[in-house]
């Protein structure tokens, strides 16, 4: 059996939170697909609420606490990410963005990502496509085509076998993510923190020779 590592980042603030609920449903759907593909999936959930102070301290001091550092390392070595945030004032939450801001710019390169968001009304659903998707694209992550937005009302709407209802969207997104997670080799990569840029010379390219 192949082993893959799935990391779930939930930026919900209340406990319990509908953001975490959505994250858990997406995780279950993805794991189910991976099972069917013969993949043994390890899941790690990062609740940003628990790391809130550590994230702010990292912004201030420039280095992560041991707890935050462990979360970042885990995410950096994941084969797939399910990232879910509440939509606050037109965009992902500040805590979610602050967490992204303390990552190395290359930390998410090639990482398959399923993006999800929650909100009070359906009117904010496009925030996924105009703020969350470009954020991960900028970081060279691979975002699956289907993103999943859950408004409060969605939790009371059943599957219709089409494309509109929450369970259908979750199912399609999970299928898309599972295929990419299967082909990811990120969790078995070895990263050399001291790798010098190609062509680097300690005396530069000029004069000193």
């Amino acid at each position, binding site marked *: 059996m192949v082993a893959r590592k799935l990391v779930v980042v939930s930026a919900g603030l209340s406990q319990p939170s509908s953001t975490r609920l959505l994250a858990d449903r997406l995780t279950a759907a993805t794991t189910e697909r991976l099972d069917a593909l013969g993949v043994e999936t390890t899941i790690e959930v990062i609740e940003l609420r628990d790391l809130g102070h550590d994230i702010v301290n990292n912004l201030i001091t420039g*280095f992560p606490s041991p707890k935050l550092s462990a979360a970042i390392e885990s995410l950096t070595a994941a084969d797939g990410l399910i990232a879910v945030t509440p939509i606050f004032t037109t965009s992902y939450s500040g805590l979610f963005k602050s967490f992204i801001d303390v990552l190395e710019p290359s930390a998410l390169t090639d990482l398959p990502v399923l993006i999800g968001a929650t909100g009070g009304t359906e009117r904010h659903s496009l925030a996924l496509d105009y703020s969350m998707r470009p954020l991960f694209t900028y970081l060279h992550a691979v975002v699956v085509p289907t993103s999943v937005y859950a408004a409060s009302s969605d939790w009371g709407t059943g599957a219709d076998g089409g494309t509109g209802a929450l369970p259908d969207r979750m199912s399609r997104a999970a299928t898309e993510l599972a295929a990419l997670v299967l082909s990811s080799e990120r969790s078995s990569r070895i990263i050399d923190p001291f790798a010098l840029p190609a062509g680097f010379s300690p005396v530069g390219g*000029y004069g000193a020779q």
Partner: protein
Amino acid sequence: MQFGIFTVGDVTTDPTNNSTPSEYERIKAILTIAQKAEEVGLDVFALGEHHNPPFVPSSPTTMLGYLAAKTENIILSTSTTLITTNDPVKIAEDYAMLQHVADGRVDLMMGRGNTGPVYPWFGKDIREGIPLAIENYALLHRLWREEFVNWQGKFRTPLQGFQSTPRPLDGVAPFVWHGSIRSPEIAEQAAYYGDGFFANNIFWPKEHYMQLVGYYRQRFEHYGHGTADQAMVGLGGQAFMAKNSQDAKKQFRPYFDNAPVYGHGPSMEDFTEQTPLTVGSPQEVIDRYASMRESFGDYQRQLFLMDHAGLPLKTVLEQLDILGEEVVPVLREEFAKNRPAHVPDGPTHASLVAKARAAEAEQALGFGGTAVNVPLDPAAVN
């Protein structure tokens, strides 16, 4: 093993009484602190270089030149000299001049500087920080070692037949440390030249710097300057002390909580646990820093940051008394225990002159003496 202090030169409001020293007061305080460092038996005083408020030391050699006249023994150094935005020709001249004025009691620590606007203010681009540090130092290294330099690079006007003056004292260039927080390129550069590598060590967890120092040591050996444990390593440190540990914490807490770098962030308890900052009794500081050699190997220079975050001059001078009288003498003994004979001491002008003369004598006898030379093939990097 050399012990000393390094200063950033910040003008910071004292959070306990809301008073802010004038630039004049702060500059004079730094000069007083440096002289106190010599008085209490420290080996090194290192001064930062900055070109934006609230920092005052924009002109380090002016201050270090004054200190050269006022002191007898202490090594005058920098923390750091901006190798990116300064003209390497001017660094070569300024510090060779200082070396003569100070009878050789001078070395330097190269740094890139991380204040974005300083680069464009000096006509440079921060995105070229590493290439600037590499090229500028390559020129500086030659200017101190070759009489007449022909040179062409990317970042400054070419030179034809240029002779930097004065020539280094006794024909021996000042020792150079390269400071870096995270760039393997700079550790590689330090290793290539057989120069020292200084790990700031104070603002981040020790484990990070241990990796970087370990890498530098390996590459130092790779380039043929000696064994890995003979590489020249310097570390930063930070302490605040009182006889009784609780008093130290109580006194320092308002300064910690409002400090420009880490204030309003983690608690003092978390920060002291995660970084080498030690707030407590002299014995606690001794224990913490005596253990550094276990993490980094036997090293050559330990500098402490003592005057920052708005601490008043009087407090800093008291801290230096404790450091010089109670802490450093014990650390000297601790670091001397089981230190292998082949591990070099901290660099001094006398030690560099002796090394240069020995190499010349070996060369004259036909032994090659490559140990002190830079490797001939700069392409042999990876």
